């Protein structure tokens, strides 16, 4: 008979946690119970939470004897990034290769959109509209604004198109490639509904494909139309959710895209089905290399830009994405966190005593207001919240409620996001200099190794300490 002390030693059972059940873990059990109770699927915000190979699985091989580093604080490392010079009369010129991704007014509050626009302008980069169109606040706050043309065409109009600095035709996004947008009724207030020509309060489910074209041959004609309407002034981006990246990049290029935007599965959303977020698309790490290689194979790395998004957090992520072929990255979730998303507090200006002299708007002039209880009321907690879809964002980022939205000061928010983007740019140049590059765009796959076999296979760089690239 086999000795089974775990069965006969109650003391040991009490002292040790029972073995985790992989297939039916606590999250799975909770998910089954939720579906059983509500009869529907979970909907949430943000991107994939599951662990997938990502940029943390890569390391940069900085200079030593065989490479010559640049002085970290003294020698220039360029970050200027230009898109669309081949066809557009007014190419997009960015000071840093770090942009802000498309997020809708509707999903985000008007203050949040304004703050992102201000921040992008402060650091010389672009921000992007989203489903539902362009707000005047966002246009005026943004030096470089990319105008999305989405399947829903909510709020899409030629006046705003001509007022944009680039147009991005959205075929999909990383959080839900193949799916349309979603904005639940609690966020479809009067202004949002008006901009989208929808009844107030409907659960808005956007179309997943464009109304007036279907395949890549049609897309070519659509891009020509947009160029005609904008008098060939501005670049045309095409955004895809990362699935069949090699094919999609080639088709976007064939259709005439100036820039291809590839959004990996870690890319965020304001609301969609959890099953979509966690089970569709491929990781950003795999997508960037596929896209970069497709452009290289076409001989178009100079003429067609590549922007990669989905889970970019740090300058190290940026440097690695550029090394794998991206010309720039695009961030969604991270700038929202910089705005205050998931913080336990929001900051507001103190109410001055009557007849007091006006004070400045420095950080120290603000008071912190704890909203942990409001997270709890949503069934979540600061640091874990993905409840953007509820419209009850305690810090005013993803809400259309006037009281909640007022908690986000767009000026303070912009300062924080600009600080964050600057820090990312500095980290990127620091790493590029250490690799001996005087331009961040000169980072290359040869500067990378992988920590895991999976990452080595996806990024097609050697496993650290070897010259082995899986599949080669």
């Amino acid at each position, binding site marked *: 008979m086999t000795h089974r002390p775990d069965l006969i030693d109650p003391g040991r059972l009490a002292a040790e946690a029972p073995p985790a059940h992989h297939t039916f873990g606590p999250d799975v059990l909770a998910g089954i119970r939720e579906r059983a109770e509500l009869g529907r699927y979970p909907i949430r915000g943000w991107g994939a939470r599951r662990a997938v190979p990502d940029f943390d699985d890569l390391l940069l091989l900085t200079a030593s004897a065989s490479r010559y580093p640049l002085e970290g604080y003294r020698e220039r490392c360029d970050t200027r990034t230009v898109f669309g010079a081949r066809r557009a009369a007014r190419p997009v010129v960015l000071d840093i290769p770090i942009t802000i991704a498309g997020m809708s007014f509707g999903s985000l509050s008007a203050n949040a959109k304004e703050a992102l626009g201000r921040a992008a302008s402060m650091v010389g980069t672009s921000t992007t509209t989203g489903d539902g169109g362009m707000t005047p606040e966002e246009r005026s706050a943004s030096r470089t604004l990319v105008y999305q043309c989405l399947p829903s065409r909510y709020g899409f109009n*030629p006046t705003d198109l001509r007022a944009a600095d680039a147009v991005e035709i959205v075929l999909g996004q990383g959080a839900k490639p193949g799916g349309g947008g979603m904005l639940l009724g609690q966020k479809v207030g009067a202004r949002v509904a008006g901009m989208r020509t929808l*009844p107030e309060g409907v659960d808005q489910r956007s179309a997943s494909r464009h109304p007036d074209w279907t395949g890549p041959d049609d897309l070519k*004609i659509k891009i020509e*139309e947009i160029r005609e*309407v*904008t008098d060939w002034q501005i670049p045309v981006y095409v955004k895809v959710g990362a699935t069949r990246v090699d094919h999609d990049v080639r088709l976007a290029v064939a259709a005439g895209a100036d820039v291809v935007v590839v959004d990996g599965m870690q890319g965020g959303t304001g609301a969609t089905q959890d099953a979509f977020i966690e089970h569709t698309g491929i990781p950003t790490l795999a997508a960037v290399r596929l896209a970069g290689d497709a452009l290289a194979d076409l001989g178009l790395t100079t003429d067609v830009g590549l922007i990669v998004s989905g889970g970019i957090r740090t300058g190290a992520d940026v440097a690695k994405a550029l090394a794998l072929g991206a010309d720039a990255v695009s961030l969604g979730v991270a700038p929202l966190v910089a705005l205050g998303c998931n913080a336990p507090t929001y900051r507001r200006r103190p109410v001055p005593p009557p007849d007091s002299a006006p004070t400045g708007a420095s950080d120290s002039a603000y008071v912190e207001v704890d909203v942990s209880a409001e997270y709890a009321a949503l069934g979540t907690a600061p640091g874990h919240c993905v409840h953007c879809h509820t419209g009850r964002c305690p810090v005013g980022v993803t809400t259309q409620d006037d009281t909640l939205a007022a908690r986000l000061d767009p000026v303070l928010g912009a300062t924080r996001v600009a600080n964050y983007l600057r820090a990312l740019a500095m980290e990127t140049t620091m790493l590029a200099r250490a690799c001996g590059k005087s331009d961040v765009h000169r980072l290359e796959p040869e500067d990378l190794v992988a920590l895991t076999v999976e990452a080595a296979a996806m990024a097609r760089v050697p496993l650290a300490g070897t010259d082995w690239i899986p599949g080669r």
Partner: protein
Amino acid sequence: MGELSGTTAVVDEARDEIVLDLAAMSTREANAALRSLPDGARARLDNPAGRHNLAVGLTRAVHVRIAGPAGYYVGGLGAAAEVDVDGPAGWGVGENLMSGTVRVRGAASQSAAASAHGGLVVVEGDASLRAGISLKGGQLAVAGDVGRSCAFLAQAGTILVGGDAGEALGDSLYEAVIYVAGRIRGLGTDARVEDLTEADVAAAGALAAAAGFDHVDPQNVTRVASVRSLYHFDTAHHGAY
């Protein structure tokens, strides 16, 4: 006719039209010439041969006549202008129109007037699949038949079908209203036939008059509108699509 200096355009003085010969001009040149015209000007595009993207993005109250078949998106993303196509048109005629009129003196291919926010798109022949898809306040009048999924996801505006409507008419409608003079092969999810009111007769009559449809009796059209049962998530909707 006299030639305009610096362009390949000529002026048809008898018709008071500027004539652009597409056999000798690129689409870009032709559209740039159209955009430069002042309010009230008249232009004619000869030899269109199904060229795509003609007369798109116009912003002034000009009249443009396309003397032959046009390709995709003719008159699309436009405002204020009056665009006539003397022949059939391809996909997306008058797509995302903001105001003004696009008239097709023939049949139109798929997605006529897609996402039109305003203005009027008239198809004097039949229109193919998804006519009026995602309509956002514009008006579409089709003299003949429309194919499957007419008014799919149409949000606002009015569609008049002078002939018969295909399957899945009005699928997933929001607030747009459809009037059909002929038969309806089938309704889409969340669309229903509703009683015709005096306001409907007036609206259908006004649209027929604007389109020049003498064959449509506004007293004898069928009104199709949204049930509005899909406006909010409901588990019971599973399988409705």
